[in-house]
């Protein structure tokens, strides 16, 4: 695929002895939204977490095969994993703000990068919160502890936190699962906005949402990539029976 930002090939992932990703080969284009759908437990989160090596922290896990980002294997020797993760931001399935203030949550990534300039940080925090459609709700509560925000606000805070360090790729694991329809809509609009600058990979359980936001859609099942195509094709004339059954809700 031309313009591929990420090329995954023959990728396998194991938790101990159980193989949860099986020979995944997929190319993910730059500045597009790629949706990942599939039944619970099929390995969507595991796949996402393989793209920023977040699975490294899980004892006994093992990756095989290659994931090329801009032509370089992220699992290669002497890869700077922290640097990789700055490039490949992530919003987790369960929102996980730090037990710090709203402001400090968003500023965290900047501070650990050694940025000291107060005005720069303030400006970036505000912009990230605006981008995550949260600014108007928290602009007077920046010093409050993040845990005092509602679940949906916490999730958007996590999005703002990921945006603050301006990654190139944004991995989003069901970013809208805890949001009401209005906030979900905001996030979806945000995603459309963000894809001008970022390459986005989003996991979702919501078929309509996948159809609305993603340019391409990958369907996973039992650790395998069943089908991967332009979203409209996946949702209107998928080539695999499994995909069709899943899309039409014949199993879940």
């Amino acid at each position, binding site marked *: 695929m031309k313009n591929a930002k990420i090329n995954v090939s023959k990728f396998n992932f194991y938790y101990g002895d159980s193989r949860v990703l099986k020979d995944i080969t997929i190319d993910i284009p730059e500045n597009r939204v790629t949706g990942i759908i599939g039944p619970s437990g099929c390995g969507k989160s595991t796949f996402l977490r393989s793209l*920023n090596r*977040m699975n490294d*922290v899980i*004892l006994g896990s093992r990756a095989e095969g290659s994931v090329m980002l801009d032509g370089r294997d992220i699992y290669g020797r002497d890869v700077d994993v*922290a*640097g990789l*993760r*700055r490039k490949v*931001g*992530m919003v*987790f399935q*369960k929102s*996980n*703000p*730090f*037990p*710090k203030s709203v402001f400090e949550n968003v500023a*965290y*990534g900047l*501070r*650990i*990068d050694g940025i000291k300039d107060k005005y720069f940080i303030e400006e970036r925090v505000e912009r990230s919160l605006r981008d995550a459609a949260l600014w108007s709700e928290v602009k007077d509560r920046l010093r409050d*502890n993040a*845990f005092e925000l509602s679940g949906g606000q916490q999730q958007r805070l*996590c999005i703002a*936190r*990921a945006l603050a*360090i301006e990654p190139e790729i944004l991995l989003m694991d069901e970013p809208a699962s805890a949001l009401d329809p209005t906030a979900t809509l905001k996030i979806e609009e945000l995603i459309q906005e963000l894809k001008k600058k970022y390459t986005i990979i989003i996991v979702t359980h919501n078929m309509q949402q996948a159809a609305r936001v993603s340019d391409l859609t990958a369907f996973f099942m039992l650790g395998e990539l069943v089908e991967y195509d332009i979203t409209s094709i996946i949702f209107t004339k998928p080539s695999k029976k499994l995909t069709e059954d899943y899309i039409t809700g014949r199993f879940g």
Partner: protein
Amino acid sequence: MARHAHKEKLIHGLFLLNGLLVVFLLAGIFAVLVKTSIPAFREIPLGQFLFSSVWNPTATFTKPSYGILAMLVSTFMVSVGALAIAIPIGVGAAAYLSDVANRHVREIAKPIVEILAGIPSVVIGFLGIVLVGPMIARIFGLPNGLNALNGAILLAVMALPTIVSLSEDALKSVPRSFQEASLALGATHWQTLVKVKIPAALSGIIAACMLGMGRAVGETMTVLMATGCSIKMPASFLDSVQTMTATIAIELGEVPYNTTHYYALFGIGLVLFIITFFVNMASDIILHKYQRVMK
């Protein structure tokens, strides 16, 4: 339903009883201390007791003097010194065990650390005399190494097992999701430890340090053996000192019953009680304030 309510009431009552018992015991101890030390203050001016550094109750040719300031300062030096040594080492070791060490090291190291907590204070005091003392003497070129520094080191050693073990528990109970969030933003393990894990575990770590020190400060035997037993105003950590607890322990056995000296020793006990009470209250307030900020 009714049975349930009865049970609830019973349990509630039991807990209330427990709480009241503790309060009564504390109040009782306080009352005894006050009652027994009052006669001392009929003889000793309060100003002398608190602000004089001359403790000489058995003076025969001059007037006996009952100043506890030197002991107070000594106690403070030994305790603070011990904290200064034990907290960085203890928290560092806990961080190592929870974050760096692999599972095998942790599984072996943690029980060993916990066994260390059971070593009797006399043994630690003995080590202070035969091991730490000579080392301090050699390093600083002193005739002997029985001084405040020695006491502080030994108390730190005694506090360490508790601090390490409980801090490690606190660090381990920090949700993995905080750690992942930090790593996902490009933080190193070290940054994650310092900026996320330790702050998130801080209330537990503070509690660990308090418990560790509480245990160590109560250990009269160790400081008695290792600090050189000299009641004069210490000028540095290399001076011999005698803490308040040590004074009580040494002198209470020999003092004639119902003398001013006897009552004065209870007066020291009262001061200790008050100090302990306020230190505990202060750390409680700090802890609560901190937890509020964290929540």
